[in-house]
Every structure is written in structure tokens, then in C-alpha cells.
């Protein structure tokens, strides 16, 4: 858990760095996100005068929900957990809760941009979630459970070569979804503050200081959780079934490598595509939907 | 008093009342006599009911009191009493508003009681000829009452009424003659050959062919009087033009009396040429009436015409129930006769008060009655809901019974038509009455306090309506069962 939370900003930093490189810039250090966070934590807060008491709680709740999701991602060990905490659906549920609260918070300040961000976010989310679930289902149907650890164990270590068509399609769908779920180009642009194009940033607009820090940290965490989800769904390599220091170490390194790979993919996509118009996004997600549906069909028929 | 005495007293009482009234001019005294006469009639009817319940049917000359007749007699007595109570307050307002001339009141009352007397005779008549004579008598008296207001609409309605119904029941007479012709060969000529009881005794031996023709004549004839479609066209005119209390009697009792005539012939026909034919005929007429009434209820603006068409629908339901037949169907039909009579009278009363308040029968003008006359409006709403067949009101129970009678033998088509029309009509009446009771009242409405006597009468009827919706008392149940046996033979 803590490991994931701490690792989260690094992934963002890495992606930024990579992008800079791809755009042949030096770019900031990979540790930049940590610096931002500490800086924000030290700053004071400016609150909208119209905001209610809820507004101050939002970052807390969002962060808590997101971090709680990390507890459900199998990082190092596969197999059914010692104490059953939750499954993929609960994980998605927690992420949805975080998004819900974030959107609510965005409306609290009563500015146009918060509303715009919230509205767009809540337009895209309902389209992403079903596809995401279907991807999970396509994996779960094989294993007969939606518990990530068990799923991973079921897939085992012989991954790519054991894949059948359904897995490939499912992975394709996941690849399509990844930018959307992590709030990146071509669906959203994390770097811009040009009001008319931003989704996620729009919702953060009114937050400041430690509050903003929580929100930013939450989004880092959300990103790594998503990546972790993908890796445990499709590349459960190195998830040790047994305990033991070596196994643990191996698992961690394997996880880092997998996440790094996915991060690279994101960076590549971001630097090679332009952001889509909001109303083109449904079509974009439609591709993912079709992939997922076909994957399911293949599983069942 | 012996039942025989009761038998001849029953028609005499209203007749005497009628004559007595001709001598009086003052409104209050007239009303007093009116109420006392009706009360006496009601008590006598109850006494007779008790006597019959204990010692079985009684006959006296051309009169005969069996449970079948009692069902109708009790209805008649109740409604007459209610009407008399209602008339007290209604008349005061009517005279004040110039709707009724103070000097012609005695004729009005005399006619009403003459009308009642003739109806009593139709109900008690055992001799089919007497039945016919009394039936024509009701036509003559009530026709004068329909045209009593004397304006062109009243006269038009009266003319249509007397002409069409006279034609109708002259067909009825033809049917009677034919049955008599068929029976006289077995019973021997003379008045007894027209006695329903005597004919029933020999019914199985009667020549089916001629009985069949006779039944069709009687069916169409008395059906005209009962307002079965497509012979119903006079009914909305007459019932809407008559003074409100008379409308209540016409819709509440008179058409039921005609129905009693039909039932008498139906029993003979069923015994002579099998149950199938009369059942078929009744079912067809019933369905036609229900269907025909529907569009006119939906697209109606005149409140009293609306109620008239409702009578057509409900008389159709009764006919349908008789057509379904069997113990359940007949039981349901008789129950429906009572329930509809009570409810319809109540609706006419409530409508009458509404019309008096707004000075019009146009339902587009009558609005927001709750604000103007809360009690009257509530009663109107209740009665309308009952008319539409919602519990806990009486008509729901009888329609339920009718439905059972239809579903049991599996008359699916009839049941389907019946239910569809009932739902559509429900929509219609709830639409109309809802618009009249809710919302803002239109300016023309008078906000005078509600007179007590109409409210009393309505409360009386509403109480019966709700009671019969919540339960069927054992005594009443036994009465209906016996009556059913009489019909089924």
C-alpha cells in the first residue's frame, strides 16, 4: 500500500521525463512530483468564499478512497488473500467513489470551470467503467472469480504464450482505456490549464495548498493503481504464490518493470497523439467497448 | 298484518298519497306528506320482506311477492324514501330559483307518487298482462314528469320518451300475447294463463318456436324500456331533462323494473327452449350496450347525459351478467341491480346539487367543487369512484362477481370487451369528475351553505353504498340466493 502510494508520483515523473525526452527537451527530474507535493503541503490555502464545509473534506475523502483502492491490488503475491478484503469490482467502486467526490467538490466552489470539468468527467466515466468491467469479466469468466489475486494465480506465470484470442482482445481494450482512466491524452491533458480543454485539472482548479496536494497525490495513486490492475490482470509474472524474502524482492522488481513498461506506453501515446474533441471521445471508447465485448463473446461461445 | 294485506296495501299507499296531495297547496305540507308516504312504503316493503323471508312467497290475485320481486321492491322503497328526503331541500331551492312553479307543485308530487305506485305494481305483478299495463303506466306518468319543466327541451325529451318506449313495450305486449297463446293451450284461457307462476309451471311443455319469437319480442320491447343499446337513444334525453329527483328514480329503479320484466320472460324462455338462447341474446345486448355507451361517456359535456349513458353501460353489465347466467352470474346481476340503483341515485343527487350551484349542466363550467361545496364534492367523487368500479364501494363487488361468472365458463371474448370498456370508461368518468371537483372553482359558483336534507339523503345512500362494498350481510345474501333460485328455477 504505502509502497504504491510512494511509488505513484515517481511514475508520473518518469512519464513526464520520457515525454520531454521524446520532445527532445531535457525536462524536469523524475523526482519533480515529490517536490511539488512537499511544496504544496507547506503552502497556505485559499478557499472560495461560496464553498461549503464539504469542500475542505473533499481532498481527504478522495485521497482516502484512492489509497484504499491500492490495498486491493496484488503487488507481490498472487492467490486468494489471507483475509478477504475486496475484489476488482470493489476496486473499481472505490475509484468511482473518489471520482464522484472529486466531481462534487468541483461543483462546490460554484465557478464555471469546476462545473465544466465535473460535467465532462462524469460524462466520460460512465462510458469507461462498463468497458473496464467487461475487461475484468473477460478475465474473471476464465477464473470464475473477480478476485484479483486469484485471477492472477489462475493465469499463472506462463502468460503471453498461454494467451488466447480473448486475452489479446481484452488487453487491446485495456490499452485503449488506459489513457482515459489515467486522465491522459488523447482523452484528457494533464499538463494544460487552458480552461476549455481540461477535465481533471478543471476539477482541481479551486483547490490549493495541502488540499491540492492531497488531490494530486490521489491522482498519482489512481494512475499507479490502474497500471497495477492491468499488470495483475494480464502479466501476473513474478507474483509469488509463496512468501519469503527472495520471492518478495523478485515480485517487487517484476512489478516495477511492468509498471515502467506501461508508463512508457502512456508516454509514447501522449507524445504521438493530439487530444480528441470531447464528443469524439465516445467513439474512441467505442473501440475499446467492441474489443471487450468480442473478448467476452470469445470466452463464452 | 298478513302478507296478503301488505300485498294490496303496497300499491295502494302511494296511490292514496298521490290523491291526498292533489288537495294541498303548501310546499311544506306537501313535503311532509311526501316523506311520510315514502316512509310508510319503505316500512311496508320491509315487513313484506320479513314475511316472505319467513314463510316463503305469497300470492294475491294478480299480485305475487317472491324473493326476486323483493330485491327490486326494496330498492324501490329505499330510493323513494331517499328521493323524498332529497326533494325537501331541492324543492326549496328550485322554487326559489324559479325552476319549479309553486302552484304546480301538487301535480308534481301527485305524479311522482303515481309513478311510484305503477312501479310497485310492475314489481309485484305476477300476471304478465298486469305487468305490461303497469309498465305502460310508468311510461305515461314519468313522461309527464320528464316534460314537467315545460320548456322545449323537456317537451322534446318527453315526446321521444313516450313514443319510443310505447313502441318498445307494445312489442312487449306482442311477446306477452304470444306467450299467452302458447300457454293458454296448456293452462286454459283466462287470466291465469297470463300468470307467470302458472306459465312457469307448464313452461317445459310450451311450444319452443312460438315462445322463442315471443321472447325476442319481449326482449326488444322491455329492452327498449330498460335502455339497452341500440334501443337506448331516448334514455339520455329523458334522464337528463327530468327534474333531478325524477332522474334518480328513472335511472335508479325504472330501468331495473323493465329488467325485471325481461328476467320474467327469460326464465320462461329458458325453461321452454333451453338456457342457451336467452343467454345468448342477453349477452349480445349487454355487450352492445357497454360498447355503445363508451364513446358517449368519453366525449360528453353534459353532466346528466353523462350519467344517462352510464345507466346504459350498467344496464348492459346486468344484461351481460344474466347472459353469463349460472348461480354466480344471476347473483351478480341482482347484486348489481341493487348496487347500481343506490349509486346512480347518489350520483344524480350530487350532480343535482352541483348543477344547482353552477346553474349549468356543462361540465366545462363546473370546476373546483371542493372549494365551493366540500361535502357534496366528496360525495360526488365517492359515488363516481364507485360507479367506475373501485373498492371499497359496492359496484366493485358486483362487477367482480360478474367477472367471475364470465371467467368461470370461459367467455373470454366477452370478458375482454367488458374489461377494456370498463377501464376506458373508468378513465372517462375519473377525468370528468376529477376536473369538476379539483382545481380552482369557476366564478359562477354560488357559495351558499349546503342544505341539510339533500346531504342527509346522500349520506343515507352513501352509507349503504360503502356498507355493501365492505360486506354482504347474511340476510341480504340469503335474499339474493333465494332470488337467484327463483330465476334459475
Amino acid at each position, binding site marked *: 500500500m504505502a509502497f504504491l502510494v510512494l511509488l505513484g508520483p515517481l511514475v508520473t515523473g518518469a512519464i513526464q521525463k520520457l515525454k520531454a525526452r521524446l520532445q527532445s527537451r531535457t525536462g524536469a527530474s523524475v523526482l519533480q512530483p515529490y517536490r511539488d507535493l512537499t511544496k504544496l503541503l507547506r503552502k497556505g490555502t485559499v478557499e472560495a468564499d461560496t464553498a461549503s464545509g464539504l469542500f475542505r473534506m473533499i481532498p481527504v475523502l478522495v485521497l482516502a478512497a484512492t489509497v484504499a483502492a491500492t490495498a486491493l491490488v496484488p503487488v507481490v503475491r498472487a492467490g486468494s488473500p489471507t483475509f478477504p478484503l475486496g475484489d476488482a469490482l470493489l476496486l473499481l467502486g472505490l475509484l468511482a467513489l473518489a471520482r464522484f467526490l472529486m466531481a462534487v467538490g468541483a461543483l462546490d466552489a460554484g465557478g464555471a470551470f469546476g462545473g465544466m470539468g465535473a460535467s465532462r468527467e462524469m460524462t466520460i466515466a*460512465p462510458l469507461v467503467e462498463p468497458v473496464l468491467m467487461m475487461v475484468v469479466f473477460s478475465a474473471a469468466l476464465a477464473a470464475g472469480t473477480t478476485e484479483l489475486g486469484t485471477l492472477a494465480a489462475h493465469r499463472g506465470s506462463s502468460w503471453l504464450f498461454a494467451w488466447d484470442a480473448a486475452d489479446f482482445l481484452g488487453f487491446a481494450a485495456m490499452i485503449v482505456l488506459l489513457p482515459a482512466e489515467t486522465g491522459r491524452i488523447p482523452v484528457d491533458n494533464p499538463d494544460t490549464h487552458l480552461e476549455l480543454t481540461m477535465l481533471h485539472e478543471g476539477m482541481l482548479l479551486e483547490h490549493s495548498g495541502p488540499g491540492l496536494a492531497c488531490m494530486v*497525490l490521489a491522482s498519482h495513486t489512481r494512475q499507479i493503481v490502474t497500471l497495477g490492475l492491468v499488470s495483475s490482470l494480464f502479466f501476473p509474472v513474478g507474483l509469488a504464490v509463496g512468501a519469503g524474502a527472495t520471492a518478495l524482492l523478485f515480485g517487487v522488481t517484476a512489478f516495477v518493470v511492468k509498471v515502467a513498461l506501461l508508463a512508457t506506453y502512456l508516454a509514447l501515446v501522449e507524445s504521438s497523439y493530439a487530444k480528441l474533441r470531447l464528443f469524439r471521445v465516445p467513439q474512441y471508447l467505442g473501440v475499446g467497448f467492441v474489443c471487450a465485448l468480442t473478448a*467476452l463473446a470469445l470466452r463464452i461461445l | 298484518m298478513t302478507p296478503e294485506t301488505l300485498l294490496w296495501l303496497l300499491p295502494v299507499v302511494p296511490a292514496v298519497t298521490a290523491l291526498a296531495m292533489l288537495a294541498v297547496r303548501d310546499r311544506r305540507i306537501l313535503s311532509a306528506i311526501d316523506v311520510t308516504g315514502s316512509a310508510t312504503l319503505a316500512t311496508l316493503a320491509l315487513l313484506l320482506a320479513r314475511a316472505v323471508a319467513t314463510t316463503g312467497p305469497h300470492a294475491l290475485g294478480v299480485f305475487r311477492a317472491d324473493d326476486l320481486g323483493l330485491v327490486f321492491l326494496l330498492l324501490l322503497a329505499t330510493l323513494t324514501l331517499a328521493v323524498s328526503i332529497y326533494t325537501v331541500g331541492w324543492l326549496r331551492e328550485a322554487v326559489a330559483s324559479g325552476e319549479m312553479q309553486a302552484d304546480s307543485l301538487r301535480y308534481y308530487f301527485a305524479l311522482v307518487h303515481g309513478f311510484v305506485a305503477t312501479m310497485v305494481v310492475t314489481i309485484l305483478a305476477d300476471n304478465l298482462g298486469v305487468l305490461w299495463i303497469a309498465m305502460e303506466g310508468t311510461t305515461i306518468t314519468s313522461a309527464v314528469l320528464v316534460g314537467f319543466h315545460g320548456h322545449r327541451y323537456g317537451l322534446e325529451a318527453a315526446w321521444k320518451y313516450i313514443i319510443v318506449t310505447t313502441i318498445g313495450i307494445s312489442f312487449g305486449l306482442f311477446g306477452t300475447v304470444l306467450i299467452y297463446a302458447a300457454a293458454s293451450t296448456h293452462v286454459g284461457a283466462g287470466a291465469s294463463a297470463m300468470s307467470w307462476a302458472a306459465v312457469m309451471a307448464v313452461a317445459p311443455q310450451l311450444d319452443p318456436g312460438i315462445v322463442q319469437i315471443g321472447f325476442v319480442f319481449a326482449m*326488444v320491447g322491455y329492452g327498449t324500456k330498460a335502455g339497452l343499446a341500440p334501443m337506448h337513444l331516448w334514455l339520455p334525453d329523458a334522464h337528463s331533462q327530468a327534474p333531478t329527483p325524477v332522474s334518480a328514480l328513472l335511472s335508479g329503479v325504472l330501468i331495473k323494473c323493465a329488467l325485471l320484466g325481461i328476467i320474467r320472460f327469460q326464465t320462461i324462455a329458458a325453461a321452454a*327452449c333451453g338456457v342457451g338462447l336467452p343467454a345468448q341474446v342477453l349477452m349480445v345486448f349487454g355487450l352492445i350496450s357497454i360498447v355503445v355507451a363508451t364513446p358517449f361517456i368519453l366525449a360528453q359535456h353534459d353532466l346528466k347525459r353523462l350519467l344517462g349513458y352510464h345507466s346504459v353501460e350498467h344496464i348492459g353489465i346486468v344484461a351481460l351478467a344474466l347472459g353469463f347466467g349460472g348461480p354466480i352470474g344471476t347473483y351478480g346481476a341482482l347484486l348489481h341491480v341493487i348496487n347500481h340503483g343506490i349509486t346512480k341515485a347518489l350520483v344524480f343527487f350530487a350532480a343535482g346539487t352541483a348543477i344547482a350551484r353552477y346553474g349549468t349542466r356543462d361540465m366545462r363550467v363546473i370546476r373546483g367543487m371542493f372549494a365551493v361545496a366540500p361535502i357534496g364534492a366528496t360525495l360526488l367523487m365517492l359515488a363516481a369512484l364507485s360507479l367506475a368500479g373501485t*373498492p371499497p364501494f359496492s359496484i*366493485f363487488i358486483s362487477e367482480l362477481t360478474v367477472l367471475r361468472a364470465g371467467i368461470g365458463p370461459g367467455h373470454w371474448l366477452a370478458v375482454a370487451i367488458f374489461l377494456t370498456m370498463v*377501464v376506458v370508461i373508468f*378513465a372517462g368518468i375519473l377525468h370528468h369528475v376529477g376536473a369538476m371537483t379539483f382545481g380552482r372553482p369557476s366564478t359562477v359558483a354560488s357559495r351558499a351553505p349546503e342544505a341539510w336534507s339533500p346531504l342527509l339523503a346522500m349520506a343515507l345512500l352513501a352509507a349503504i353504498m360503502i356498507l355493501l362494498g365492505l360486506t354482504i350481510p347474511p340476510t341480504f345474501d340469503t335474499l339474493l340466493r333465494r332470488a337467484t333460485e327463483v330465476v334459475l328455477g
Partner: protein
Amino acid sequence: MTVGLGMMAGCYGVGALGALLAPLSGRLALRVGHLAGLGGAVAGIGVALSVLGGAPGMVLRQPLPDLFPFARMSLAVDGLSAFFLLVVSLVAVAATIYGPAYLQAHAPDAGATRAGVQVVSLNLFLGGMALLCCAGDALTFLLAWEGMTLASYVLVVSEDEDGTNAQAGLLYMVMAHGGTALLFVAFLTLTERAGAFDFDALRAAAAGLDPAGRNTLFFLVLLGFGTKAGVVPLHVWLPRAHPAAPSHVSALMSGVMLKVAIYGLLRFAFDLLAPVAAPLPVGWGWTVLVAGTVSAVLGVLYALQQHDLKRLLAFHSVENIGIILMGAGLAMILWRREAGGGVLATVALTAALLHTVNHAAFKGLLFLAAGSVLCRTHVRNMEELGGLARRMPWTAGLFLLGAVAISALPPLNGFVSEWLTFQALLGAASRSHGPAGLGIVFAAAMLALTGGLAAACFVKAFGVTFLGRPRSAHAEHAREAPVSMILGMVWLGALCVFLGVAPGYAMRFLDRPTASLLHGPGASAVVTAHGPLVLATGLTGAGTEATTISMTAISVLLVVLIALAWLLRRGLGHAPRRCAPTWTCGMSPSARFDYTATAFAKPLRMVFAALYRPRRSVIVESAGTPYVVRRIRYAGEVVDLAETQIYRRVEVGVTRLAQSIRRRSSGRIHVYIGFVLGTLFVALLFFGVRR
């Protein structure tokens, strides 16, 4: 327990009689009536729990006085009845606590008569629903059914400002009547076969039915109850009638009355009409599943486009009924079909029942909260609200709670039942091959979509209503609702939390209904096999592959994390906190900058434009030249397709027909006579000649 039934009936009766106090004082009548209602509700809870906690297969029987010669009337409370009685009573408690204060705060100058009417009809409404659940024979069932409908109709029209409620009530009453007619046919067909009215006799009679008859009856029943439950496309009355009623009644109608229809459906499908020891016909389950899915998706889609707070909630009832039906339909499909003792059917039915009580809780809560907004602002249009979170914090908080719950977000109850539904769907899919499985999975996807859209809808509903700046004077001067109203809401809120955080403890109350319906293992035997703290769905029978979650653990974790995050939120160093106007590109912000509900839903409106067919009209008033624009008027609405395409047309058609027929009729007496003559002629030809 019989005593409990008596107490329940007695209390409701007393409550109804409380109306007699109205002439003395309307306020007193309200108090007494609702208090008695509360007593009835509590008694109901007692009865229900005693049956649900009692011995398996126990049925509480109580004959009623023979009101009608043709039918014996009786009460019979088995597991299913008890469960629904529990649901009714739980919400009834909240409604009766909430009611009096609401009615007074909302319309202080309403006459005593209205108070009396409302008291009578509320108690009859509650009593009718309770009686319906306990009914042991067809007649009691039908009478209670109609009584319930009539009472709720009166309540709908009781608060009528301009006759619109009368229209809504009319639509409601007519559709209910139509549905009931179908039920009558179904019931009476059985009673006439059985020769008796009690359910045991009906069961026996149904056993002798041929498949065709069985199917006909089922679909009649489905249509009949579907109308009441608001299944698309029979739902059009629902979003009109529910908002029109007083809010605590809306809560009852949406939260409970619809469920009573579900009760009837389950009673028929699994109990009365079910073939002996054979699976249900395939068509039944699939029809229900499809109807449920369609209702769920369309319900939430239409809800998204509403500006009227209560109307929005009403559409969400359509959605949730759909979700319940998905579970129920799945159970119908699986029952007695799957290998291995029918665990999945139990899961599906458990999901459906759990969602029934969950929806009752959070939808009741939401309606009550909307009601307290309504009674303080007298505005139902969200666009004119806003900024209420600061003015009525309790209401806002509880509404948010309900919003999270209905959006199926952890850790509240909505998530639990939808999770179970998902698991059941998934399990069914993994068992079935071919298109059937695909269909089930597609339904699961639709359920996911529904959840997402619901979340979006409630971000809008909560945000626009309670957050930002007040957009009208009404909202400006709103005050917090009276204590008793808040109490009513807190009761339901607590229910939502309990069912979300510790659902395992509620499972044992689902044992009796599930077991008695499916004749299989009870809910708790399947779902809480690993103890009450853990929910497990035995997709392949409880074992290694069973999916297990622990709502309790996750909630604890959340609490801990919130505490930690709160520390973080305090920040390092103690930098000052300032207040400043919201950033609006440097302009001075005003209420016009706030995002409106219409604007919020706009993107989704465009995404689903094909379904919505939105109507919009833009009127530009220019001053002489087209270049100088005075004002631009924008009017847009999304209309219910079922309403415009089906119902409006039927209505218009029937009315036109009737009018044309009426116009044709001439008042000439010759026509009258002609008809009589013609009838005799035809009648003689047809019936006069002896064949």
C-alpha cells in the same frame, strides 16, 4: 405474533380514525394520525422480524371475518410476506416520523379537512400495503391492492395547486386500473378453477394448468404488476404521480409501493404459478431480465435530463426497479436449471431482495431530503436552488449519503446489492454457453453503465441543488428543516450505512424468503458462508475460487485512511488560510456563473442524442438589425419517448374517435324509432327462427 398483527391493524385503524379530530384541530389530527401510523409500523417490524427469525418454513396464519359469502378471507405470513412487510414498515417508520412536521411546514394554512383526508389516506395506504404483504387469499390481496392504489391516489391529488396533480393522479389511477384488470383476470381464472380464494387452493389449481395457460397467466400478471412497478414502457405514470404526492408519501410510493408489486410478481412466479418440481419456462426469466435491463438503462438516462428534483428521483425508481428485476429474472432463469444445488439462483434472488430493501432505504432517504428542501424553498426546479449545503447542512449531508448509496459506491448499501447482482450475472455467464451467456454478460455491462450514469446524475443533483451559490430568493432564505424531519431521514441514513458496512448481519433475515421460494439453501448459508463479516459468492460452490469481500474491513480501512489523510490535509507548517472569490477569469463571480443542471447534463445529452431526441428552440430577439441582439431565449426539453410515441397517440386516437362518433349522432326521433325497429327485425331474423 397474532397479537402483533392485531396491533398493526389496530394502530392503522386508529390512525385513520384520527381524522375525526380534524374538526377540532388539523394539527392534532396530523400528530395523532401519524403517531398511530408509527405504532403500526413498529408492530409490523415486530411481526416481520419474529417470522424471519422464527423456525424455518413457519407460516403465521390468521383467519379474517367472512365479509363476503363467496370467499374465505385470511392472513398468511410466510418468509416472503414477512420480508416485504419488513421493508414496508421500515420506511413507514421514517415517513410517519417525518410526516406531520413536513405537512405543516410545507402548507401551514392548509385546511383541517385536508389534514383529515391526508391522515385517513396515509393510514389506509400503509395499512393496505401491510395487509397486501400478509394476504393469504386472492380477495384480501385484491382488496388491499385496490385500497392501496385508491389511498395513494387521494394523497397524490391532496396537494393540488393548479390541477396538474389531478392530471397526474388521473394518469396514475387509469394505468393502475388497467393493470389491476389484468391481475383480476389472472386471479379469477385461478379462483374459478380452484373454487376457492385462498393461495393454497390457487397453488393446487395452477398445478393442473397446461403450459399455454400457465404462460398466459404469467404474462398477464407480469403486465399487471409491471404497470404498478413502473417497468418501461409501463412507467409513464410514475414520474408524474410520485413527485405530485407529499414528499413522505413519495418516499413511500417510490420506496415501498413499487416493491409490493415485486412481491406480487415473486409470489406468482416462484410460488403460485411455478410448475411442480420443474424449472420455470425459459421465457419468463428472460422476459423479466430484459425488461429489467431496459428499465434500468432508460430510467437512469431519463433521470439525467430532469431539472425537477423529485421527478429525477422518480425516474431513478424506474432504474432501480430494473436492477431488482434483473436479479429476479436471473433467479427465474437459473432456478432448478443449474447443476449443484442451485447456489447461483439463491445469490441472484438474494441480490434482488437485498436491493429491494436497499432501494427502499436510500430512495426513501433521498425523497425525504428533497422534501425538506421543498418545504423550505417551495421550489422543485433545481435551477432555482443551489447553495443549500451551507443553509441546511443536515439535509445536505443526508442527501449526499443517499446519493452515494444509490450510485452503488462503496462502502454503502447500494454497492453491496449491485455487487451481488454482478456476481450472480457473472456466475450465470460462466455457466451458460452461446448467446444466452453473452446476453447475460451484456446485461452486466448495462448494469455497469447504469451505475456510472447514476453517479453522474447524482453529482448533478447534489451539486446543483446544494452547492455553489443560491440561484433564487427561495434558496437564499432557506432554513434547516425541523428536527423531527431530520430524525426521519437519519433513521433511513443509518439503515443505508448499516446495510453497507455490515450486510452480513442482515443476511440472516433473507434466509426465510430465499429458502421458502427456492426450496434451496438460504441466503446466509450461501453468501455469508465465511461468517457475517465476509460476503462470499460461491460461483462454484464456496471454495478457493469463491469471490470474497469484506465491506466491514474496507470501511474500517477507509476510516483509518481518512484520519491519516486528514493529518496530511492539515499540512506541514502552519500557513494561513484565506477566503477569496471563485476564479472566473478575473470577472466578479455571480450566481449566473454556476453550472446549471441543463449544462451539466449537456454532454451526455449529446452522446445519447439518438435516444433522447431532444427538443430545443432558440429564439433570438434582435433590435432591428440582426447584428444587435437584445435577448436570446433558449428552451430545451427531453421528452419520454414512450409517452409521446405510445400513450399520447393512443389517448388522442381514442378521444378523436369518441368525439367523431358522438358528433354523428342525430337527435331525430325517426332515427330512434328506426333503431328500435331495425333491432327487432334483425333480432327476429337471428334469434326468432328456431334452428
